[in-house]
């Protein structure tokens, strides 16, 4: 029995510490997924909090997980997409994105700083992408979902996902004019 399964069983047997231990390793990525989809710290926190509550309820209801980690990330993605759909009409794209607030500010060697700035630059460009493109980039490259899985999540055909993903990459490339991003990967779509 793996550690995750063991923690799930402990949750069900009433061990209240077990849930925190179970989800803590996934919170970082879950928040990154939610934030990069929603571009709002508060909304991202909402999304992750709701997903945490929902996942605990599912565990206690006896749901069986093939991979809890993947299921949890999918849940966060779905809840984030729900929020973005709900607010897409109301929300203008003018929300201030302060990425400097997201990173660790402790002093570091120059090489590390340069590397971080590169990452941050790319992150800013990803966050600048229109909603659809940004979401597809995150689902494909960060969550490592297949085209089929993405098509089910975003209610698009697989062909449409491929086309939009191709455009999203081009858009990101034009935003991030640098040799850092190769924009080619063996077996990558179009």
């Amino acid at each position: 029995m793996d550690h995750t399964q063991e923690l799930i069983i402990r949750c069900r047997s009433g061990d209240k510490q077990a849930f925190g231990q179970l989800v803590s390793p996934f919170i970082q990525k879950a928040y990154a997924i939610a934030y990069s989809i929603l571009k709002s710290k508060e909304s991202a926190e909402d999304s992750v909090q709701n997903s945490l509550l929902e996942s605990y309820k599912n565990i206690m209801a006896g749901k069986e997980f093939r991979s809890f980690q993947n299921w949890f990330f999918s849940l966060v993605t779905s809840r984030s997409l729900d929020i973005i759909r709900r607010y897409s009409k109301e929300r203008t794209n003018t929300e201030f994105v302060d990425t400097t607030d997201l990173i660790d500010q402790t002093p570091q060697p120059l090489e590390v700083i340069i590397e971080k700035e590169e990452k941050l630059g790319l992150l800013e460009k990803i966050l600048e992408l229109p909603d659809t493109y940004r979401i597809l980039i995150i689902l494909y490259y960060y969550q490592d979902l297949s085209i089929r899985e993405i098509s089910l999540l975003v209610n698009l055909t697989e062909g449409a996902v491929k086309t939009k993903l191709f455009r999203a990459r081009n858009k990101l490339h034009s935003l991030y004019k640098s040799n850092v991003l190769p924009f080619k990967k063996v077996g990558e779509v179009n």
Partner: protein
Amino acid sequence: MKSTKDFIQSSLNEIKAPDSLYEFANNVPYMVEIEEIKSLSKQVPSLNFPVKKLTNHNFIKLASSAIAVLALIISSSVLLPMTNHNGVKNAAINEDQKIKKENNIDKQNLKISSYDFSDSTKNSLSLHKGTQVKNASTFQLQPQLTQDSKEQRFSKSFRDLDGTLDNLPRDMNFSINNPDIKLLQNNLYGLFRNQVEWSFLGPNENRSLIAETKTFKPNKQIRWVNGHDIVTIEEINHKADHTVLVLLQKASGKESVSLLNTKIALFDLKGNMISQDYEPPTLTGNGRFIFSFPEIKNLPDRILIRIVQTEDSSKKAK
């Protein structure tokens, strides 16, 4: 050579999750438990048990139980001294009345929600049968709570917290036939909280600061996080019936927002709202603003103070 995936993954991994999420995760089992207890306690009075068909078998069971209960009542009334009866009965009646009153309060509280309002112009409010609905014709900037012979009149200007003018009823006057001023205030507080809780997801959400309530020292310079304003906490006065927060706005730049046009909410560090101000702040001079909050039973050692910008009340008052 790194692939696109590697670059994107490493850049997104730079996003740091707030500590509050880890704390939240640890508290999830307790929160769900409390939620379940609450929903159970709401369900209990209105449980609809399935109606059993009165078959012969059931009828015999029912009749025999009734006879047993009746026998028990007769035997206890014979055995118990008669002198105790009045006392017991009176106590029971008093207890009944008390319970009835508390239930009514619960009902009133339950009925208060955003759905009770129609819109910003009609200002209808349906709390309970005794509520009188009135239409507002004049704008009231400050809430007024006055009491005449029978009814209390409460006027409140709702401020447009998200700037869309769509989501909040703004100016509203209503009268509530309610003799209990504290209950009324609590009810209204519940109402405001329902109305504006989500509005703290506004664009100025990042104007926040953390205050130490237990070790609070006056004049300690704490600035808004990410805010343009220089605002310090002057005083936190936690009293039994309400809490007062005095803020000092030292300088206001081009981008700053006057504290007069703000609404403040207090959160615990897990992000749960503790309270929010129930009226516009009072400016006392020297840039000091007093924000009042309804009763807070447990003020945590550390609180998060968040501000949202409201409409410019001076413009609205015209």
